[in-house]
């Protein structure tokens, strides 16, 4: 029952806020939403403790879809993976909820915001808790819907509604692939339950089914996993479907935090990790995933280097960190990926909440070139931001170090040397751009005197989540990740995330230490470079940008992805649609429909002469009718 209550609390909050929010609850909407997620958090913690003590549950509440021999239940699966995900979603989620009380306090749509937040939490929990692909899919789509609602929360802003649409449509593309993947799963395994699908014999059978597409020899498993991964590409913002994530910054900052840290983007990683028995068998797909992950990590990092919008920097850092996670899952290091997901949720949530606090202080200005010297004005935000930066840069003993180092080590160990190298470069870049933002925002002289004077520390409801998350960012990595590669989390997730057939490549002690040292050194180098560029020699950034002008422009314009998509895909589509509208819609469909209407009018024009408006003529008609009746009656 506990598992169900995790879902029911947010649902109740949604119902109450959704039905009565506008008229009765208004500014008290947070009571229900925050209460609901805190209760969910409590339940999650209890579940976690139970799972820690060896609890496992696969509860079927009722049979949802029954189609001959395929029965898809509404069921909940509790194992170590879902319990970890529960902790992430509800803990970071509740911090964000609490933070939102302060952040959104002056907004018109207060109740609406909390309703959406609860929907978001609910859908993510469905996604995580479901015991079959259909529930995963439902949660998947619900997450897409609620992200659409939340990104477009300020729908009167044109950019926000565009961003919402962009997120929704980009996700649709990925979801289409995921949908095909789910269908393939049904076709192959005749079931959608995880317990039925993750069956080694059947998977091997699927692997042996080979056919040719455009002369390429592929097997069913590869196609299935590729299709499923398409969904992950959409949700987890992987290249080339990453374009929606930075634009999602148009939503309120807690939404960004929620999307980037706890929910939504982790869905893809979760899905791949959940399906590890499938993915680990699909060699080509795994390599593809590693490639995509590395490319995304590099892409995000390079763009992040050049951005000036604080939230966009964070957004691209998310893209790049997601690349890490995906890369890890591709390399077979599912535990490392989920571990990074786990730690990343804390410090990325923290970063976004800090940026929200900064934004709050700077009256919604986000350009880091207008900030500076905020260290004195908002000490809590500053210190928590520092902690988050250190964590994300991967400097021990903060959380990010353990997971990131493990990803790099595992990638190296699994033989993807190039990907490892890219990861290392990205780690360097990460440290650089994170500390760049730190130095520019919090150190130096205030660049905009007016804004600086009005800056102030955020209210308590906002700072408390910051402190909590900062504390977690410090300890969580060391707590569960030590000793390296053999920590608590590894044992905890071992039974779910280590496929039977996958041999884990263990590195020798020396090699792993070298790798560890190299990543730390790289991160420190990034920090040092950032210090030199933005604290010591402030003219250097300009000069560097000038010197590498073409590359800088490429990075600054996000590799021209939006332009490419616009010209290659959107414009042709628009032209085609216009053509169809003009020739097919108006010419054929409208013509047919109008013809029906006009024929009725034509008949009416003829028949209207029967209607004189005089009673007597009607009665006369009646008399004629009765005459006919009499004749019929008499003659028969």
């Amino acid at each position: 029952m506990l598992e169900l209550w995790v879902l029911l609390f947010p649902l109740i909050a949604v119902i109450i806020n959704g039905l009565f929010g506008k008229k009765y609850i208004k500014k008290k909407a947070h009571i229900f939403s925050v209460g609901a997620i805190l209760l969910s958090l409590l339940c999650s913690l209890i579940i976690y403790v139970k799972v820690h003590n060896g609890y496992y549950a696969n509860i079927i509440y009722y049979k949802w879809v029954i189609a001959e021999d395929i029965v898809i239940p509404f069921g909940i699966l509790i194992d170590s993976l879902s319990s970890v995900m529960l902790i992430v979603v509800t803990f970071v989620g509740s911090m964000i909820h609490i933070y939102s009380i302060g952040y959104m306090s002056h907004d018109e749509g207060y109740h609406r915001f909390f309703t959406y937040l609860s929907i978001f939490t609910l859908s993510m929990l469905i996604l995580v808790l479901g015991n079959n692909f259909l529930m995963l899919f439902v949660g998947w789509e619900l997450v897409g819907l609620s992200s659409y609602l939340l990104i477009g929360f300020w729908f009167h802003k044109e950019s926000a509604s565009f961003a919402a649409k962009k997120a929704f449509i980009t996700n649709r593309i990925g979801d289409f692939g995921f949908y095909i993947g789910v269908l393939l799963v049904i076709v192959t395994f005749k079931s959608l339950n995880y317990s039925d699908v993750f069956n080694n014999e059947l998977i091997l059978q699927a692997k042996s089914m080979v056919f040719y597409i455009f002369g390429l020899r592929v097997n069913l498993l590869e196609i299935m996993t590729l299709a499923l991964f398409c969904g992950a590409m959409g949700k987890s913002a992987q290249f080339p479907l990453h374009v929606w994530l930075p634009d999602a910054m148009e939503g309120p900052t807690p939404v960004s935090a929620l999307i980037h840290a706890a929910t939504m983007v982790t869905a893809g990683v979760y899905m791949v990790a959940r399906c590890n028995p499938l993915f680990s068998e699909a060699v080509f797909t795994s390599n593809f995933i590693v490639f995509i992950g590395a490319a995304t990590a590099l892409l995000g990092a390079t763009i992040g280097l050049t951005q000036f919008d604080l939230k966009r920097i964070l957004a691209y850092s998310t893209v790049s960190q997601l690349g890490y996670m995906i890369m890890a899952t591709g390399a077979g290091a599912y535990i490392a990926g989920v571990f990074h997901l786990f730690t990343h949720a804390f410090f990325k949530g923290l970063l976004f909440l800090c940026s929200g606090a900064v934004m709050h202080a700077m009256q919604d200005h986000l350009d880091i070139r207008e900030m500076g010297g905020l260290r004195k004005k908002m000490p809590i935000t500053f210190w928590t931001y520092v902690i988050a930066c250190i964590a994300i840069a991967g400097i021990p003993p903060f959380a990010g170090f353990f997971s990131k180092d493990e990803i790099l080590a595992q990638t190296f160990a699994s033989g993807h040397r190039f990907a490892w190298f890219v990861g290392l470069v990205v780690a360097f870049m990460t440290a650089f751009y994170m500390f760049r933002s730190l130095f520019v925002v919090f150190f130096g002289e205030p660049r905009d005197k007016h804004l600086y004077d009005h800056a102030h520390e955020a209210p308590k409801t906002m700072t408390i989540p910051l402190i909590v998350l900062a504390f977690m960012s410090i300890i969580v990595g060391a707590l569960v990740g030590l000793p390296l590669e053999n920590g608590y989390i590894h044992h905890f997730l071992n039974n779910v995330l280590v496929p039977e057939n996958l041999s884990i490549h263990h590195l020798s002690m020396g090699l792993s230490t070298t790798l560890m040292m190299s990543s730390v050194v790289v991160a420190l180098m990034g920090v040092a470079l950032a210090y030199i560029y933005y604290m010591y020699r402030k003219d250097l950034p300009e000069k560097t940008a000038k010197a590498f002008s073409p590359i800088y422009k490429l990075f600054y314009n996000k590799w021209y992805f939006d332009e490419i998509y616009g010209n290659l895909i959107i414009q042709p589509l628009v032209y085609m649609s216009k053509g169809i509208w003009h020739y097919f819609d108006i010419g054929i469909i409208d013509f047919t429909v109008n013809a029906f209407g006009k024929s009725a009018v034509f008949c009416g024009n003829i028949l209207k002469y029967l209607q004189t408006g005089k009673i007597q003529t009607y009665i006369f008609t009646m008399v004629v009718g009765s005459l006919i009746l009499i004749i019929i009656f008499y003659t028969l």
Partner: protein
Amino acid sequence: MEKAAFYILSFVIIVSSLFMITRKNPVHSVLWMLLTFFSVAGIFIQLNAEFIAATQVIVYAGAILVLYLFVVMLLNPKTHGFAKIPYRYGMTILVVIVFVLQIFMAASMSKVLGIKGVITSEKMAEIGNVKLFGAELFNTYIVPFEIASILLLVAMIGAIVLALRK
């Protein structure tokens, strides 16, 4: 005696109803109508329906027709003569045909098809029309009776609403 009464009454009914539809003055029409109703009441008495005859006079003549007369006198409409209907002659011929056919059918096809009941004229004379009628109305037809009273209530309210509307 009975035959003579029937023919006299029929004659009065037909003549007065013809006058009713042809008079130009609506008040005269109403008065001819009154005569028709009286004669019809006479026909009812011939048919062993004394209660109906009394009701005919009380309800039709005493209430409904008075209402018509009131409205006629209240509105005092100018005489309009007859309707100007297109194809008047064709229509007249048709009506006459229907008319003749009806009479023809009435005369030739009036077989008593139903099951003969138990209430013969003798029994009626013995027990009395009103008692039998009341028993039938309030036993067999109690539901239609209630529906009819609701209909009257609705009509009353409707008439008041329509008439009082400013």
